[in-house]
């Protein structure tokens, strides 16, 4: 039986899980937002990683078809999104029920009106979300249950009668947390079958899309291929689904990391510092890495590693959130835009407004002042992004600078504007050198954890000359 290893990175904002095989290859990833109940967050991330692993196994079985036939590739992409929707929908049903129960318990004079409005809101947002998942690729946008629902719920509440605003928001606030903290069990096979039905409906309903030159040729090729041949893919999947769904993904060992690691229900020897895990993960993907910058939700770490991926020194921020992901979250709230919109807008700026405040909260006040003075939003955002990177640069300097290949990890590495300034400032300060950013950046800590789990550390670490490990840098 194949052995698999699990790494869970319980961060302040997101919880990540990675499953690797015996060759250190990632076969499954899972991510969710961290919530009050850490165990649920960790379990959800793990379950997602296991589903993802099953999809990987499925894709491996039909590998030849995936490589040669565009419809297979497209179908597998689509089915993962719809699969996510199915999970979303189950939880949404629970939320719906909880919302009504909460509202029924209100002692409000307008109780009936509240319930009526709730019904309308749910009836409006449910199909919206379904549409966005199935046609709009919402599943690939790194949004979580709470974000997706609350964004749309809030929009609809704003359209409801004003006097119902408070109770409607209260109903949501009271319901979302317990629902989010509830562990929902899904049946992989069942959800895949349902997803296949949804996809059938989708492909049948697809009208001819005119080639207007706005998209690449392959887009139309894939679309047409899947529309005409999805039945073949379906047949193939039906053949293999039993095998994959019933396969025991045997987790031989796991390691938990991240700031919430001590709260994970893992034995003590299965808990590792996130600094070591991030470094080990980043080093595994980019073996020449000597400096790792990780910008996460509530901390930023500059880590120096040796040729084996072992940490030689590190520096991290504390006392202040300016310079990490939460700062961006706060800024997004200030501007009333979503976290995902920050980077693209900042990149579009003509110049960077200088932001003086070194404090997250004060920066909020400074931003308001700048807006009031007519400064453009994009320029302010660019300035804020630059300020974050400046802070990270100071940590890098304190940890010993960048001596060789540089790898940028953490959730914030997905932000294009941060990426732009990191590249710019690292080059300015340390010259041209290889800089690595991977699509899996956010998973590096979990990957490192899984890799530590696979190694029975004492037996498997590379052998080297005593006290000479630094010299190989």
């Amino acid at each position: 039986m194949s052995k698999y290893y699990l790494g869970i990175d319980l961060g302040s904002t997101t919880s990540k899980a990675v499953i690797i095989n015996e060759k250190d290859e990632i076969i499954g990833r899972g991510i969710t937002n961290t919530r009050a109940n850490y165990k649920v967050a960790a379990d959800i991330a793990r379950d997602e990683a296991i589903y993802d692993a099953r999809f990987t196994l499925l894709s491996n079985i039909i590998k030849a078809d995936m490589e040669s036939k565009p419809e297979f590739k497209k179908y597998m992409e689509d089915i993962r999104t719809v699969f996510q929707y199915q999970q979303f929908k189950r939880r949404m049903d629970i939320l719906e029920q909880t919302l009504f129960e909460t509202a029924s318990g209100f002692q409000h004079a307008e109780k009936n009106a509240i319930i009526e409005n709730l019904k309308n809101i749910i009836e409006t947002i449910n199909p919206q979300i379904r549409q966005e998942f199935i046609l709009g690729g919402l599943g690939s946008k790194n949004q979580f249950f709470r974000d997706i629902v609350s964004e749309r719920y809030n929009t609809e509440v704003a359209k409801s009668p004003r006097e119902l605003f408070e109770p409607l928001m209260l109903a949501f606030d009271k319901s979302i947390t317990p629902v989010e903290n509830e562990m929902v069990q899904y049946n992989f096979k069942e959800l895949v079958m349902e997803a296949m039905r949804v996809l059938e409906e989708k492909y049948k309903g697809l009208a001819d899309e005119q080639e207007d030159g706005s998209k690449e040729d392959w887009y139309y090729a894939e679309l047409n291929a899947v529309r005409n041949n999805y039945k073949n893919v379906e047949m193939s999947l039906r053949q293999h689904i039993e095998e994959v769904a019933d396969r025991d993904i045997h987790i031989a060992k796991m390691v938990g990391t991240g700031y919430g690691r001590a709260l994970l229900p893992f034995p003590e020897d299965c808990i590792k510092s996130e600094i070591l895990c991030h470094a080990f993960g980043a080093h595994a993907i980019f073996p020449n890495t000597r400096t790792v910058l990780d910008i996460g939700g509530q901390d930023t770490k500059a880590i120096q590693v040796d040729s084996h991926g072992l940490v030689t020194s590190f520096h991290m921020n504390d006392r202040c959130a300016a310079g990490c992901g939460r700062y961006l979250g706060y800024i997004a709230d200030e501007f009333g835009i979503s976290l995902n919109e920050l980077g693209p807008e900042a990149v579009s700026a003509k110049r960077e407004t200088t932001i003086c405040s070194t404090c997250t909260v004060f920066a909020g006040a400074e931003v308001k002042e700048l807006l009031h003075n007519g400064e453009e939003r994009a320029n302010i955002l660019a300035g804020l992004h630059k300020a974050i990177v400046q802070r990270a640069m100071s940590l890098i300097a304190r940890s010993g600078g960048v001596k060789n290949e540089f790898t940028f990890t953490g959730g914030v590495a997905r932000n294009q504007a941060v990426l732009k300034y990191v590249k710019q400032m690292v080059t300015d300060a340390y010259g041209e050198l290889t800089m690595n950013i991977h699509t899996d950046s956010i998973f590096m800590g979990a990957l490192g954890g899984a890799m530590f789990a696979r190694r029975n550390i004492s037996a498997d670490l590379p052998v080297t000359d005593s006290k000479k490990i630094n010299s190989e840098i």
Partner: protein
Amino acid sequence: MEAQKEKSMILQKEMVNQLFNDLSRAKETGKKVCYTFIPGNLSELIRTFDMLPVYPEINALQSAMRKKSASYIKEAEKNAHSEDVCTYVKCDVGMMMKGNIGPTGEKIPEPDILLLSYTGCFTFMKWFETLKRSYPNAEVIMIHTPYQENAKMTTSMTQYMVKQFEQEVIPKMEKVTGIKFDENKLKKHLELAKESEDWIAKIFETTKHRPSPIDAYFAGVYYIGPINIGFRGTQQAVDYYKELYSEIQERIRLGLGPITPEGEMKEEKYRLVVEGPPNWTSFREFWKIFYDMGAVIVASSYTKVGGVYDLGWRHDPSRPLESLAEYCMNCYTNLNIPQRIDLLSKCISEYDADGYVTNSIKSCNSFSAGQLGMMREIEDRLEIPVGFIESDLVDPRYFSYSNIKNRLESFFQMLEQRKKINENAPIN
């Protein structure tokens, strides 16, 4: 064994109580009181003039350990001391404002002399300027101590200081105390100081043993207590250190590790050298993070603030004033950065340390300036894992237990990995 351990502690306690008791009765006995600081303290000279010493930093750290510093600091801040002022100062000023009750519950008398014998810390100067306003009758003596910029104490530097002793310090002390300077008396104190220093050097060398019989930082701060509160140059100090040394010898004979607040440390897993003062407000919690991980501190720079004896320097009765001058110039924070690096590197190599930790103190410029560069240099030179944490002396607001624990946990895991690698290394 237990009785022996207690004996040195009892001796120390007696010395502390006696000092504070003498201080509380200074008015009745007519003894003059000299406020001064630990780095470069002229204990022997103070004793030659029969004065009683008061160390404001010691009072501040004692207040912190008794959980009183927060309210003292608040009191000082209420009186316009900024958030950025050294917290030793604020704690001391706050204590003064609240009646100047010392650690034993007895009142600390007002100073007759404010003696500044180390100018490497600019805050010290400002501190006594502040106290001068509260105690207008106190005589202020400020001695300029040249910094060891070129890594040595030259004859002219020594002469420059001796001249200050002769022309400023001694005449003022004679004036305040009404006692004529007695060089022979000073020589006797210096002889005893030298003896104490020999014992201290021996005590801190015992950490070369495996397991180390003592912790040279967390327990070390207690061991340096007697010499740092004015007993250097007395027979009591010599007796204390002799006793302590024999207790430690017994621990070595029995193969015992250091004593912690929760009993004996069972397994010595990591040997560390620590740079920077400890945090006093959460001293026990801070210590616990280390001993829980099986980490013992085999050498620390902080235990050298009251004198660096590792390199052979001792007080010398045959050159009384010259040796006092050298003592002032040779305190740890008066060494230049390369000297400190050399000293710490020597400790790491000789005591066979596995790692180096810097505790950077928000309040303390004397220590914090250059700490990061020193760490980098030591890391490069010795290829040793290094860790950096931040806290404060006596302001509890700047001790974040979870942040410090998180960093230290990562650091210990780093050490663990490194150890495994070294253990797996082929034997050449």
